[in-house]
C-alpha cells in the first residue's frame, strides 16, 4: 500500500471520525440541553426553579421558568405556542384544593376562516375544550379544577391547539413560524 493510498484512507478516517464526533459529542449543561436541544424549557433562566406561589400571575409577556415545551419566546402581545402543544410546569408552594380556579387570558392563532379548539389539561385530565373563532382574539377564562394539587408536587398544564398555523400557511404573510395558543397570563387561585 502506497503513501498516497494511506492518505486517502486517512481522509476517510478523519471525516468518518468527525461525523461520529458531531453525532455523539455531548458536554452540554442541563439548561443548554433543555432549551436548545430537547426544548423542554422555553426560557434561559439559570437560577430559576418551578416553585409557584398560588394566586401569582404568570405573565406571557416576560420570561418565566414555568414555560416548558412548545412556546415561542415571550413578546409584547403575549406568548405564542410553538406548534399545537404547549406545556407549563410548576410546583405549588402550598396545597391547592379541588375547586381552585385556573384563570387565564387565552387566544389562538387562526387562519382567516378556520376555527380551532383549545384544550386545557392539568396533570393529564382535560378540564376544558374551548372553541375559538377567527380572529382568535384573547379572552378570559375561569375554570374550576376538579382535582387537588398538593404542595411541592409537579403540576403539568398542557394547552393544545387543534389547528396551529403560520402567517405563511394561512396565506397572509411571509412569516413561517407555526403558532398555536396565545397566553397573556395565567394563575391558579385557591378557592375563596
Amino acid at each position: 500500500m502506497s503513501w498516497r493510498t494511506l492518505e486517502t484512507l486517512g481522509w476517510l478516517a478523519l471525516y468518518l471520525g468527525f461525523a461520529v464526533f458531531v453525532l455523539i459529542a455531548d458536554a452540554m449543561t442541563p439548561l443548554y440541553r433543555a432549551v436548545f436541544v430537547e426544548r423542554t424549557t422555553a426560557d434561559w433562566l439559570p437560577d430559576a426553579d418551578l416553585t409557584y406561589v398560588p394566586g401569582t400571575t404568570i405573565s406571557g409577556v416576560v420570561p418565566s421558568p414555568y414555560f416548558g415545551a412548545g412556546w415561542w419566546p415571550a413578546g409584547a402581545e403575549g406568548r405564542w405556542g410553538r406548534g399545537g402543544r404547549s406545556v407549563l410546569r410548576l410546583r405549588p408552594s402550598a396545597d391547592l384544593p379541588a375547586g381552585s380556579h385556573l384563570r387565564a387570558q387565552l387566544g389562538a392563532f387562526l387562519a382567516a376562516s378556520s376555527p380551532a379548539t383549545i384544550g386545557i389539561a392539568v396533570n393529564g385530565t382535560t378540564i376544558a375544550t374551548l372553541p375559538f373563532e377567527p380572529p382568535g382574539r384573547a379572552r378570559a377564562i375561569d375554570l374550576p379544577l376538579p382535582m387537588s394539587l398538593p404542595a411541592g408536587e409537579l403540576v403539568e398544564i398542557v394547552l393544545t391547539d387543534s389547528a396551529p398555523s403560520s402567517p405563511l400557511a394561512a396565506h397572509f404573510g411571509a412569516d413561517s413560524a407555526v403558532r398555536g395558543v396565545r397566553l397573556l397570563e395565567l394563575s391558579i387561585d385557591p378557592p375563596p
Partner: protein
Amino acid sequence: MRPGVWGKALGTGGLVAIGTLLLFTFFTVWAQQALSPGPETSLCLWDCDWYFSIARGGYQTAPDPATLFTNLGFFPGFPALLALVARLTGLPLNDAAALVNPVLSLAFCVLAVRYRATLGLASGAEAMLFLLAFLLSPWSLYNRVPYSEMLFNLAILGTFVCWKERRLVGAAAFGIVLTATRVSGVLLPLVLLAGLIYEERSRFLALLVEPDGRVRTLALMPLGMMAFLVYLYVLVGDPLAYFHAQSLSWNQGLRNPVRLFADALQSGPVAVYDVVPFAVATIGLAVGWRLRRIPGELAVFAWLVPALSLSSVPEGQPRYALGLFPLYLLVPALPKWLAWLVVTGLAIGQFVFVYFWLKRVPWLV
C-alpha cells in the same frame, strides 16, 4: 506570477471597485439626506450587530434571556476578519468594518479580471460589465454593509478560479475561508467533488487509490467549518450549537421547499417578493449554463445556496447576494445597449434598496 497581467487586472478591477464604491457612497449620502430629519441612519443593521458582537467579545455561552437570540448562530469567518483588521490597524471596529468590504470587493474585481477566461468572459470589457452588474445590483447592498456576503463571494470566486487553474494551495486556502464563513460554503467542495467524479469517471476509483493534489485540496476545504464545530463543542459542549441556535432562535430548518414556495406565492406581496427572485435566478442560471456563459459548477452552486435557504424559511433577501454572482455573467452576453440598460436598472434598484435599508424596512432583512 506575471506582473503585467496582474497589473492590468488591478487597473481594470480597481476602476470598477472604486467606481461602484463611490456610487454606493453617493446613494447612501443621498438616501440619508432624503431621510433627514429622522431617526439615526446607519448601515450596520440586523445581522451586522451579531457580527460585531462576535468581533468584540467572541461567542456567547448564554443567549439573550428575553429572545433566546445568540451569536452562536453565526459563522466566524467574517467577524474574525473584522477583529483581525481592527487589531492590525488599530481602528475602531466600525471603521475597520468600513474598510473590509471595499478591500474584499477590490480583491474580487481583480481576481475576476485576472481569471476572466476561467469565468467564460472573452475580454476585459466583458469582465467590467459583469462586475458592474454584480456590484451595482440591488442585492450587492449586502456586499457593502458589514455582512459576511462579500467575503463569502470572494472565497467562492477564489476557490473556483484556483481550482480551475490548478492552483491547489490557493483553492484549499480559499475553500477553508469559504466553509468558515457560511454553512452553505461546504456545498462548493461537494459540487467540485461531483465535477471531479464526472470528469474522472472512468478512473475515479484509481484516483482514490493513488490520489493527486485535487483530492487533498477538496478534503482540506471543509476544515474551516469543522474547526468551528469543534470550537463550539469546546465552548458550549455542543458541536451542533450553530444549527440548534439557528433552529430555536431563527426558526431555520429543512422543510418542504415546494410547499414553502407555493404558500409564499399566495401570501401577499412581501412573501412573493421573497421568493420570486429565486425563480428568476433559476431560469437565468439554467440559460447561462446552457449558453456556456456560466461555468457548470458555479451555476449549480449558485442555485443550491439560495435553494437551501429557501428550503428553510421564505423570508430573506441577503440570500440573493450569497453565491449568486455567476448570474451576472449573463449580462455581457446581452447586446451592448441592453447590457448597459440592465446595469443602469440594477443601479437604480440598488439606490432603492439603500434608501429602504436606511429606513430599516423589515423586508430587507
